[in-house]
């Protein structure tokens, strides 16, 4: 019997059906297309040789919570079970406080603003040094600095909050 999965990669969700066939083959259904698939693991590694309707693809697939990271060509696809989750950026409200998160790990080379300081969109808030490059991180909106969560010389990790910018009115109030 075919097992059906809801798989998301690149923000797109597809329903994929897998039906084992004799001889270690599979019939895989994606949308209205059916493919005959043979998958062989290479030695004791995470490399696989996959023949999709005899098209040969070499992939590297590592198990992750909720799915697999699959390298095809030069790209790693993060394939997850379940429907697409809206990207955080899309959910970001146009108003209200906004927090700058570190886009990479590194060391804080400069904190360019203080709490209470008015800032403009595009203004440098903090500079993070990573791999010998100074990366200027800028404000995504006009407002007033409501919080500084990083100090000069501090080691920060990806996604760590650095600066919070509130609406100018909220800042004044």
């Amino acid at each position, binding site marked *: 019997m075919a097992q059906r999965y809801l798989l998301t990669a690149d923000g797109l969700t597809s329903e994929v059906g897998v039906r084992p066939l004799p001889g270690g083959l599979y019939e*895989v259904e994606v949308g209205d297309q059916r493919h005959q698939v043979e998958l062989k*693991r290479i030695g004791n590694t995470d490399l696989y040789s996959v023949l999709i309707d005899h098209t040969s*693809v070499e992939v590297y*697939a590592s198990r992750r919570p909720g799915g697999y990271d699959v390298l095809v*060509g030069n*790209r790693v696809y993060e394939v997850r079970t379940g429907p697409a989750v809206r990207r955080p950026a899309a959910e970001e409200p146009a108003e209200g406080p906004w927090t700058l998160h570190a886009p990479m790990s590194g060391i804080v080379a400069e904190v360019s603003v203080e709490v209470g300081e008015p800032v403009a969109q595009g203004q440098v808030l903090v500079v993070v040094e990573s791999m010998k490059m100074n990366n200027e991180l800028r404000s995504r909106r006009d407002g007033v600095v409501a919080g500084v969560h990083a100090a000069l010389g501090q080691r920060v990790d990806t996604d760590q909050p650095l600066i919070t910018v509130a609406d100018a009115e909220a800042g004044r109030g």
Partner: protein
Amino acid sequence: MRPARDAGRLEQAVLRKLLVANRGEIAVRILRACRELGIRSVAIYSDADRTAAHVRYADEAYCVGPAPAAESYLNIERIVSLAKESGAEAVHPGYGFLSENARFAEACSQAGITFVGPPASAIRMLGDKIEARRRAGQAGVPVVPGSAEIRDVDEAERIGKQIGYPVVIKAAGGGGGRGIREVDTPSAFRRAFETARQEALTAFGNDALYVEKLIRPVRHIEVQIIADRFGNVVALGERECSIQRRHQKIIEECPSPFVDPLLRHRLFDAAVRAALSANYVNIGTVEFLVDADRNFYFLEMNTRLQVEHPVTELVAGVDLVADQIRVAAGEALPYSQHVVNLRGWAIECRIVAEDPASNLPSVGRVEFAREPAGPGVRVESALHDGMEVSVYYDPLVAKVTAWGRDRMEAIRRMRRALSEFKIVGVRTNIPFHMRVMEDPFFRAGQVDTSFIDRDFQAEYQAPEVDRLAALITAAVLLRHSAGPVAVEGGAAPAAGSRWRKARLVAPATPQARIWAWHNGTS
């Protein structure tokens, strides 16, 4: 009198032992030269690099200090004392770190250790970009209009106006694209000056800056030279380094598609003159800016082995690392200018750990790496499964160089090589390089230093079939991991039957082994 070199001897030990004061791919490159020359090699490593490729390749290895470069690979006293302790006769600095540090070269000579590079005096003079420019001008080499060293922002702003916008602010002790800011309008000057100053201080420990006229559009073309102690200087071809992002070179080629034989002759002549005026010994690179009318201007001289040296090696047929070790050991150059023959075309792509979408560094553990090979492909790398790409060091993880009989063959081979390169665990700029190889302007050789920022659409579209292959693979693996599969059309074992239990305990077929592995039972 030197004894005649024994042509039949495999190893030509010009030195007995050499310490490599570097890490990463360049350390491995130098260690390879040592092994070829029969020189015993010594690696140094920081706490973060104990298991790095260069440590495992070397004959001996010593810990130099904690992970931050300032406490390890930049620690002059510690490195010199390790060289003495290990009995190394010579130190090779590689590129970056201490490679252009005159104090380090001096400390080596004072300890009786051969520094594989130019004399400290030449490093000091050419490291002072302002003095280097003055000297080049005196030697009859054209230079870009610019200022002397400036520390005061008000004075700098005045000089900027005098030179005329656009201008570029540069670090006097700089290199590698750090501490550089282009300024189009007077209003943006102050902020740019302060940022450049801070970056210069962080990168070079020296916040002196200078201001130059910004020439646009401009190509960045450099000439590789090598000089021995006997006054012989040879130019080994030019390199086109116009493809840069944030002032960092990312693709280089030899020769330059823009340089005709006449311009080449003039560039070589200027490069040799610049080297002679600095009493230069060892290998070095004279960088020029070349405008659309083929006027060229001396930019600076790099007093070290360059990242992009492989393209020159492939086209000029030399081994720059072995040759510079020989020259440092006191030998005469084994070739003269008239025998230098440039053959074919070579292109290098720098593979950098970064997120292709944001161009920000990608830090993490390399889970799987497989490098390209095959005709005309050379890879310089320190990549290995399990390697940590850390925030402490340069994000360059490998260099791919492709050689072809002509430029198009080199491009085709590069595209093929890039498609073979697999890295899982950190993101890299490989998709970016793929796009450049496909770009019509690049293919036509029409690039200047603004190519990436202006003409190039960096958005990389992977083929839709790749996503499909990823989905199909994940689906089949998920089906595997769900447990033994009831094969449709075959005899499906009933759940809990003795037959099925036996299969789980002792997987027999390759297919069963995969299930078992995914179930965590193998």
